[in-house]
């Protein structure tokens, strides 16, 4: 890439204070509170286990699942490598078909564009299709602040919105709620709901349906996100389970779609790969019940005024990072959340971002930055993983999340100044690169036997090791290291006896071969 004067040195990040890409507490502190919520733990454990099992069932039945993953990964990589040209093509095609394209550098700009477009319609209400991009930029909060009421129409998003709560999962935003809680939320928040409403799922759904039907029939403006935008044709697409999205996409006069720029795909045919990968990975279904596609406007059918807002909000910053670029391949299926042992225990709120779980721990710092020096909560996210690798195995587009977490940790330690941890790591490496010093340190460690007491275990350790010893005993170091045993008379005798036995076995084997 050539450089010219006036070119910004760094692409824009998502701005501080706008949207939902930064929590107010570091992960361990937020997790501390979430871990105490037994109801949350049980709801999450049950839900993630169910989706995990379903997903394994429907991915296992496809003989070409691995090839599909490879194809998805290849298409996404190709897309990121030529994102500018594909976006321009998308803009051209949408415009040709009667839509209007808007470019938003960040969440604040996107919010202003949407607000201006809604105002121009004269409507004070909008109905919304479930959308991660608008969650990311805090569009609902912005619209409310200027007197426009957004109504979420996805059942789970509606529950979250009515409870004045935040989503905690990419696909199942109310995963942290059970049906008793949902019943209470409906009784408290839906005007005119039957006071005898019970917790039977069908009855709860009926109550929500009655409430939403009226919104669908009376609201003239809808806001959606997009799962895919096809550069070749200018087609936008939303996949969903309930059909509420389709109501929003077809009934109103005006449709405003906010799409992250990474959601573009080169060709219409690419959908054949992603419409297999996405539903199987996310809901564990062979196909989602509703797939809507629209290309610009069609006279006399559907919304007659269509706007596409293309959102950057840190995406070109991620694109400029050799490793961060891969995070943009994410298709928001949430398979990594459902297999993540950390997510399963803490839930999504602990991550402080619209994007929780393993991919969130990578994507959030990429989009919004992680200022290690400023003690940014986002800088704790790359460490919110045991690096078990289950996310990598589950990802339908093969994003190597564990390696990216390790890389982000490296970026974090490079950014931060001298810390106690850094000094300890340097000291440890200093000892380990000198074998004599290492052996001396092992001898010193053996003195730790004193701390072990009679049963040979250590139950209390000083900070920063106290977090370990709060729940685990530690064996006192043994009298002899392996290397000193090997050098001892006993070690030599044991090894030579084993070698003799080995020689006998080898001879016997030769005997048998004969």
């Amino acid at each position, binding site marked *: 890439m050539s450089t010219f004067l006036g070119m910004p040195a760094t692409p824009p990040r998502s701005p501080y204070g706008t949207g939902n890409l930064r929590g107010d507490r570091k992960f361990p502190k937020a997790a501390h509170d979430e871990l105490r919520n037994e109801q949350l733990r049980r709801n999450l454990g049950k839900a993630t286990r169910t989706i995990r099992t379903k997903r394994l069932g429907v991915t296992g039945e496809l003989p070409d699942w691995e090839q599909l993953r490879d194809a998805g990964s290849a298409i996404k990589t190709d897309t990121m490598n030529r994102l500018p040209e594909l976006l321009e093509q998308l803009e051209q095609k949408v415009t040709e078909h009667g839509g209007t394209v808007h470019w938003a550098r960040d969440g604040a700009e996107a919010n202003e564009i949407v607000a201006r477009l809604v105002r121009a319609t004269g409507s004070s209400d909008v109905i919304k299709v479930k959308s991660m991009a608008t969650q990311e930029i805090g569009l609902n909060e912005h619209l409310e602040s200027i007197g426009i009421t957004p109504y979420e129409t996805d059942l789970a998003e509606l529950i979250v919105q009515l409870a004045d709560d935040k989503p905690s999962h990419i696909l199942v935003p109310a995963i942290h709620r059970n049906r008793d809680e949902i019943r209470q939320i409906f009784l408290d928040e839906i005007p005119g709901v039957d006071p005898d409403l019970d917790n039977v799922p069908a009855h709860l759904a009926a109550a929500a349906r009655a409430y939403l039907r009226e919104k669908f029939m009376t609201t003239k403006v809808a806001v959606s996100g997009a799962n895919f935008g096809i550069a070749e044709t200018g087609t936008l697409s939303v996949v969903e389970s309930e059909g509420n999205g389709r109501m929003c996409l077809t009934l109103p006069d005006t449709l405003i779609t906010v799409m992250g720029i990474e959601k573009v795909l080169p060709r219409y045919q690419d959908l054949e790969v992603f419409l297999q990968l996405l539903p199987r990975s996310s809901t564990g279904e062979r196909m989602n019940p509703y797939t809507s596609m629209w290309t610009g406007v069609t006279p006399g059918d559907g919304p007659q005024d269509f706007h596409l807002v293309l959102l950057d909000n840190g995406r070109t910053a991620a694109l400029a990072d050799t490793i961060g670029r891969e995070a943009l391949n994410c298709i928001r299926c949430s398979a990594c959340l459902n297999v993540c042992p950390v997510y399963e*225990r803490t839930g999504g709120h602990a991550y402080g971002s619209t994007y929780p779980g393993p991919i969130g721990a990578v994507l959030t710092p990429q989009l919004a930055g992680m200022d290690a020096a400023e003690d940014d909560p986002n800088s704790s996210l790359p460490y919110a993983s*045991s690096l078990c*690798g289950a996310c990598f195995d589950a990802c339908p587009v093969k994003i190597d999340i564990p390696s990216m977490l390790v890389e982000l*940790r490296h970026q974090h330690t490079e950014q931060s100044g001298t810390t106690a941890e850094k000094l300890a790591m340097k000291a*440890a*490496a200093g000892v*380990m690169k000198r074998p004599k010093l290492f052996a001396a340190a092992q001898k010193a460690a053996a003195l730790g036997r004193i701390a072990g007491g009679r049963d040979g275990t250590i139950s209390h350790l000083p900070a920063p090791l106290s977090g370990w010893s709060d729940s*685990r005993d530690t064996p006192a170091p043994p009298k002899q290291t392996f290397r000193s*045993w090997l050098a001892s008379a006993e070690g030599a005798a044991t090894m030579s006896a084993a070698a003799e036995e080995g020689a006998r*076995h080898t001879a016997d084997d030769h005997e048998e071969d004969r």
Partner: protein
Amino acid sequence: MRIGLFATCLGDTLFPEAVKSTAVLLARLGHDVVFPPDQTCCGQMHVNTGYQREPVPLVRRFAEQFGDASIDAVVMPSGSCAGSVRHQHEIIAERYGDAALRAGVSTVKAKTYELSEFLVDVLGVSRVGAYFPHRVTYHPTCHSLRMLRVGDKPLKLLRAVEGIDLVELPEADSCCGFGGTFALKNAETSTAMLQDKMRNIAATDAAVCTAGDSSCLMHIGGGLSRIRSGTRTLHLAQILGSTRTAPYALTEAAR
């Protein structure tokens, strides 16, 4: 075969019995076991915690100690250290090393194995003459399972142990919560994961929970010890190293 034994820093210092069993087992199978004396640590803890400059000398030392062409294979009783050598040393060498280090790393990488994959894949044996008449459950550690893809190789070895009563661990492939410094930085989440793992271990009623990584076993064993569980942890190498003539006695003190 001439086998270079890598004890791992944790194994050498805190869990020498697992390394002894590995050495004895390989010798018993008729191989020449050598211990390059200046070996120390693979540097995994540094890399996983976010430090890539600091372990450069460790990566260099590993390549020097095991690069010798007379060593046919490098074997270690740890899936995560083998994973580090295979997947992380190149990253370090690429970023902060020189051409010599890059060459050394790729030579050593190609002949590095975790114990169970060495036995099953390279030596082609699953019956190693072990005798262990106890109820055992096996926890597949994450790095063995997903970085090295050892699959059911450790189970093949365990099934061939004479006298063993091998029971399946429920939700076996879920992480125990160790994750190196994760256990310190996110101690409470790590503990929540550990408790679920311990509950599953208890459900097997096994006398021993075994695995291929001393680090995960240190974590699980530490938790079991804290709750005064009747189950202990033992490295896979120690079960494979237990024979009729020299059986591992469960009653003997841990050290």
